[in-house]
């Protein structure tokens, strides 16, 4: 069985600024939800772009399913940051989700029955099929986010990448989103990046901390020193409001 992700000593920089430093990450299991937390500007989106092959590291090696990111694109679903979009754009929910099929349909071909079936299934998975003819701007924030997840699912991914999927959603919608991811994680590996520590909820299986360097111990517990290294501030506060213990017992009380 191929590893889902294998990053070895990956370095990325913009100009002279190092954004990612010596990042190593291995994901072997083809299911489960990994949460990557870290402050804004810590390199979270950059790391996702490395997974997607949109950014080339100047040092190190990236493999997805044993292949280069460019060659594994039909196995990867991507939900970009929500605030990037122009919601006035003249496009319907159905058309948005179909664009997730392009890696399968091929150039210059019209969408076929298989594409339409996959799009329909994806919309039903996120419970948005009844809205398929709506223009994208006529939906609520939570509904739009579901549509973008459906677009990623239409690819039939084995790896789903989400960039700050909880931003702009109220707590109720966030919870619905996590429940959806919780269902999906049985069928695929999911990586979600966020700066919001409360996203580290019961549904996350493993947690990594990212601020230029990636702290990851293949577990759900975060060590206090990792968090402090990541956020560079005292971390006692974050234990509040989290509906599940994420701090290791031995360190939690100190």
């Amino acid at each position: 069985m191929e590893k889902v992700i294998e990053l070895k000593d990956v370095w990325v920089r913009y100009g002279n600024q190092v954004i990612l430093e010596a990042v190593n990450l291995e994901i072997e299991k083809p299911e489960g939800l990994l949460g990557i937390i870290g402050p804004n500007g810590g390199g979270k989106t950059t790391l996702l772009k490395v997974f997607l092959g949109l950014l080339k590291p100047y040092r190190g090696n990236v493999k997805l399913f044993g292949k280069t990111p460019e060659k594994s694109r039909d196995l990867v679903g991507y939900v970009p940051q929500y605030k990037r979009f122009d919601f006035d754009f003249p496009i319907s929910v159905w058309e948005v989700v179909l664009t997730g099929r392009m890696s399968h349909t091929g150039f210059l071909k019209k969408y076929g029955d298989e594409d339409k079936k996959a799009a329909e299934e994806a919309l039903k998975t996120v419970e948005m099929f009844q809205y398929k003819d709506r223009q994208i701007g006529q939906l609520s924030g939570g509904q739009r986010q579901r549509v973008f997840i459906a677009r990623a699912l239409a690819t039939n991914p084995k790896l789903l990448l989400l960039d700050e999927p909880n931003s702009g959603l109220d707590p109720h919608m966030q919870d619905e989103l996590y429940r959806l991811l919780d269902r999906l994680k049985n069928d695929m590996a999911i990586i979600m990046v966020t700066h919001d520590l409360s996203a580290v909820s019961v549904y996350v299986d493993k947690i990594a901390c990212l601020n230029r360097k990636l702290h990851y111990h293949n577990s759900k517990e975060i060590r206090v020193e990792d968090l402090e290294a990541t956020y560079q501030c005292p971390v006692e506060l974050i234990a509040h409001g989290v509906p599940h213990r994420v701090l290791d017992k031995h360190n939690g009380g100190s």
Partner: protein
Amino acid sequence: MFELLQYSFVQNALAASVLASIACGIIGVYVVVKKIVFISGGIAHASFGGIGLGYYLDINPMFGVLPFSILSALVMGTVSKKSKIPEDSAIGILWSLGMAIGIIFVYLTPGYAPDLMTYLFGNILTVPRFDIYLMLALDLVIVGAVYLFYKEFLSLCFDEEFTTVQGVPTQKLYLLLLCIIALTIVVLIKVVGIILVIALLTIPATLSRKFTHDLKRMMLISTLFGTVISVAGIGLSYVLDVPSGATIILVLSFVYGLVAFVMEMLEGRGVLN
């Protein structure tokens, strides 16, 4: 009024305005939704270099502007994305560079440059039959390309990054879109001239957006709108004896303002009710 239709220059003018409205109705929608008005204006103005080249080489300026506008589109599309300076600065530089080249070529051309003004400001009443055929051919290329690449262009305009992740060569596709915009500009030059082309690429499409949320319907509505307005503009310019290109733009802007105003009023009332 109907006896006017017997004149071949009137027939040509009507044919030209319909062909121009098809091109700008379809491509204007992409220009507006992808928010590439500025780079389109840059391609249009830089194409003046091709007009000057045509005069200098003593060929039909349309054959100078055709390759030159494509070249402008490719250079602008590449430089604005790849260079380290901000995209709008790069476009501004190339915009004026192309015009400067055109001015030098016109200066170097011996003798007087006849109907130079018609390329700058358009004159639909003097469109020769040959140019009509050229416009028809370009329209066919434009419609064909949009038909073939419809799903790719839609995805590119909505979310370029996601389209790349889907394995579509988005940089090449973007350059293709700019080349099609360049062809559209060539179709429009005789109608309103290089200076005013951008109005035809933006106003009908922006107006159509008020009536539908569907890209295909936007293309249809803006084509119809452009046809009606440009024919009305030609009629008005003939009656008032004022330049046709500018009249078309004035009528377009007036109708747009009127529709926008009325719709705001209606929406305001809807809120009150």
